[in-house]
């Protein structure tokens, strides 16, 4: 069961940034230093997911540094579903205690002429899970960098990234470090590149010597909608162990002309046919979100931005 709406409290960090959150299980301290919002968030005692939703008013650049601590056996959802019109810089350090679950949902639309960066380091303890969903449009310059440390047995990372870019630049770095045996990582990345966009994905998986019984999957796919757009997919594997189940794939290509012709033959104009095609390309990914509310948000995001 999800946390009930009526339990949620509102906290204002600045006049442009606030959060709705479940005050029973989430403790927040904040300070503002040189325009930068510093947050310390700790989550305790929450068997059902506690939720924090960021609310941004777009009157200032968004600069946030957050330290998040999800205590053992607790469960936390962070939702950032904002259309940003100013520059953003979001730095997060997350620590997940034994048996905890963290779900991060970012459905972000950025304005073309802005610069945006998101840097996240997440360390996972025994039996903890991090589900990481990032949806972005890209902008003049967007950089997403996520570092995952799988520090203990049965720690589990599930990550998905969707980029729907239009005349934008979007760099994505994912660095997954298997530092314990019996940990799992599963990551998928899909990018649609249009209007002279340039999207890159560097997906690195490192498996340490002692890490037997490791499972790691990574798939990245790029869809090029015109000849001036680019997608660069770079999987990098460094595996120092034999007892690893690994599947990795990267592929990018143009839209299938046969499909676009089929749609046209049914009366669907080119731009609409391309949109439908993109929706199809990304929908495989949406079905991976198991929370139905978030799945609906993901579908809505794709329809609105493609």
């Amino acid at each position: 069961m999800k946390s009930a709406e009526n339990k949620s409290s509102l906290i204002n960090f600045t006049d442009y940034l606030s959060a709705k959150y479940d005050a029973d299980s989430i403790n927040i301290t904040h300070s503002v230093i040189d325009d930068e919002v510093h947050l310390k968030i700790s989550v305790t005692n929450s068997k059902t997911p506690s939720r924090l939703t960021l609310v941004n008013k777009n009157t200032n650049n968004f600069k946030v540094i957050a330290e998040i601590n999800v205590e053992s056996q607790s469960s936390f959802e962070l939702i950032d579903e904002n259309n940003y019109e100013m520059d953003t810089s979001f730095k997060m350090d997350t620590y997940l205690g034994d048996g905890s679950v963290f779900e991060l949902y970012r459905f972000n639309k950025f304005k073309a002429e802005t610069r945006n960066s998101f840097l996240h380091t997440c360390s996972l303890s025994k039996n903890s899970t991090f589900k990481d969903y990032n949806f972005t449009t890209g902008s003049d310059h967007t950089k997403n960098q996520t570092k995952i440390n799988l520090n203990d047995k049965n720690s589990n990372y599930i990550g998905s990234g969707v980029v729907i870019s239009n005349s934008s630049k979007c760099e994505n770095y994912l660095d997954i470090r298997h530092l314990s045996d019996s940990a799992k990582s599963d990551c998928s990345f899909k990018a649609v590149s249009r209007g002279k966009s340039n999207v890159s994905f560097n997906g690195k998986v490192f498996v340490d010597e002692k890490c037997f019984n490791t499972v790691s999957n990574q798939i990245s796919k790029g869809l090029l909608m015109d000849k001036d757009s680019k997608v660069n997919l770079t999987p990098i594997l460094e595996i120092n162990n034999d007892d690893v189940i690994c599947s990795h794939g990267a592929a990018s290509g143009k839209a299938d002309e046969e499909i676009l012709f089929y749609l046209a033959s049914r009366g669907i104009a080119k731009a609409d046919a391309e949109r439908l095609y993109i929706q199809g390309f990304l929908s495989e990914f949406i079905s991976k979100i198991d929370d139905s509310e978030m799945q609906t948000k993901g579908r809505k995001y794709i329809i609105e931005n493609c």
Partner: protein
Amino acid sequence: MLDIKNLNVSVEDKLILKNLNLSLGKGQVHAIMGPNGSGKSTIAHTLAGKPNYDVNSGEVSFNGEDLLSKDPYERSLDGLFLAFQYPIELPGVTNASYLKQIVNAHRKSKNETPIDAGEFLKILKEKSKQLDIPMDMHSRFVNTGFSGGEKKKNEVLQMDLLDPSLIIMDETDSGLDVDALKSTAEAINKLRNSDRTFLIITHYLRLLEYIEPDFVHVFQNGSVIETGDKSLASKIDQEGYN
């Protein structure tokens, strides 16, 4: 309503349609029969506007307008429908949502409002039942993993939903079982009226026995070599093309 004059079409620099002439009147049903590779699908694709089909010379007028200068989607909105010999799969988009979108594209071009969800479902149920299409097929992705016959039925369903004035069926009967062939023929006969024209490409007499074409054309090596009434189809069925 459709006039093809001296049409020469090449694909990948290979001349396929050679000085083709064909005229279809309003309300008529024409059948085309011809050996494999003779260019039947090439006519269908050229009429629908498939990219990379080069029209070297010739003209096609559709309801008095120049068909070949139009985009494929405009041809559809003008009332041309092609049921594909090999329907295309579109992963990630459910058949129901796709069907609704194609219906709405046509409504929009007629300045009509998008179809009401309940009304669409009602129509979809009714037409699916006639074609013996199970409703759960519509929650699957478009043609993805459909059997050969299911894909063909889905083409007929789309034809039925879009209310076209010129229907080109490229071997829609191939791959259909006896019952499906019958329900497809029934759907065609139901749509048959004095305003609607059919061009039916087939290898088999069976479909033509159900729908009784007004004209049968024998196609060979890129052009029509003989035209007759439905008895020509029986003759081909018995004697072959040689």
